[in-house]
């Protein structure tokens, strides 16, 4: 049974439809990447999944449980199992790196502080930030902030991690430090749902790639198939444009 099943999912910002009849499923431990032009609905799909934008239609199953996005209890349960990392990191500006990582496990999940802090230190060490525990977000580079954001999401102990263009806001020389952290997660078997424009990375790390355009999944397949032998014209156009240079 797939860990996450999305069926017929539609969403809109006001009157403008942004997702139309999206269907997709993720097996446990899979790394699925969404690629496609700006405005194709990739980030919106992740926002809908984490419950920041209510869907207009469609259903989502998580481990066989049907999620109800209008229902507070259902939202809370799904957020206990899914976590998201945003393009702009969105670290809490009033907290240090360590506090950013520990606040939700301590205050929301009510886990013991000593245990949470030890785990947070380990997570920050894993993303290479042992020396930045007490730094505030504005004292960190973009890449460091994004790695704190990844550690913060992992501290929630999610089963699925949603990564929304996590390297798009970074200077080129900082991209790799973040990608390395994600590679590590993929190698550990965490289910990852990635939106990315780093095509080399997508190809390397993904088990499957979905190409999206105009709010729909146009083509879905293994990385080699999508990048080397796209069947759809739109996929071919897109791949052709980005691989030309």
């Amino acid at each position, binding site marked *: 049974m797939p860990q996450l099943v999305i069926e017929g999912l539609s969403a809109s910002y006001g009157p403008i439809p942004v997702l139309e009849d999206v269907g997709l499923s993720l097996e446990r431990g899979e790394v699925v990447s969404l690629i496609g032009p700006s405005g194709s609905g990739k980030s919106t799909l992740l926002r809908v999944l*984490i*419950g*920041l934008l209510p869907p207009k239609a469609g259903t989502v199953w998580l481990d066989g449980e049907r999620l109800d996005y209008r229902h507070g209890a259902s939202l*809370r349960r799904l*957020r*206990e199992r899914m*976590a*998201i990392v*945003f393009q*702009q990191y*969105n670290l*809490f*500006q*009033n907290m240090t790196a360590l506090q950013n990582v520990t*606040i*939700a496990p301590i*205050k*929301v*999940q009510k886990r013991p502080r000593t245990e949470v802090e030890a785990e947070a230190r380990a997570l920050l060490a894993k993303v290479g930030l042992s020396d930045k525990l007490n730094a*505030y977000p*504005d004292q960190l580079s973009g890449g460091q902030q994004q790695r704190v954001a990844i550690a*913060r999401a992992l501290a*929630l102990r999610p089963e699925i991690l949603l990564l929304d263009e996590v390297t798009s806001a970074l200077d080129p020389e900082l991209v790799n430090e973040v990608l390395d952290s994600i590679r590590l997660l993929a190698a550990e078997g965490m289910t990852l749902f990635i939106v990315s424009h780093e095509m080399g990375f997508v190809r390397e790390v993904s088990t499957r790639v979905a190409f999206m355009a105009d709010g729909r999944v146009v083509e879905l397949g293994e990385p080699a198939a999508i990048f080397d032998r796209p069947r759809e014209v739109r996929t071919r156009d897109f791949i052709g444009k980005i691989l030309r240079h």
Partner: protein
Amino acid sequence: MWERIVEEAPRFFGYYNLIFLLKAMGVTFALSAGGCVVGLVLGFGVAVVRRADGAWLAPLRWLLTLLVEAFRRIPFLVTLMLVFFGFQVLNLDLSIFSVALVSVCLIATAFIAEIVRSGLDSVHHNQWDTAMAMNFSYLQTLRYVIVPQAWKVILPPVFSFFILFIKDTALASQIGVVELTYAGKVLNNRGFSAALVFGSILLLYFILSYPLARFGAWLEQRLAATRD
């Protein structure tokens, strides 16, 4: 003028006048402090309720918005009269001081609610989104994420309002509350020169508001310093 002031001063600063002035200063202080404290607490509450979603809160949100918008627009003096005559109509036998206190609390609440609202709105919406995606409740989001960041935006206008507010309590003299301005008028009417009387009143207002301004500046500094 100076000779007159020098000549009047010993009489003016006599025991009973000083007691009278200090009592009036106490009334001004009580009105200001009452308005500031109640206004801050209730204003915060109003802003928090207005920012909450949840359909069942809609009537309350609507009512609070109406009250805030009304009391920010009605002149202070008119509010005083409204409360004064409102209590009379209701046959409630309240002292004029209580009437003034209720009025200043209403006004302070309305203004501070609006200051707090804009402060909460000044925090980037991605901070709300992130907290929500991490399962923070509304109140947890406010307490741990939004308010600590909004304070810096809220404090300066709140303190500048407080200081305006101390002066505005002078309008309570219009319904007969013996606060500083009223006391000044009384002493002036007793024949003391306006320069001496209102010069002293000015000084007393300054003594009330200057420490408050310093305290505000200190708080702002302290909060700004946490991020260096």
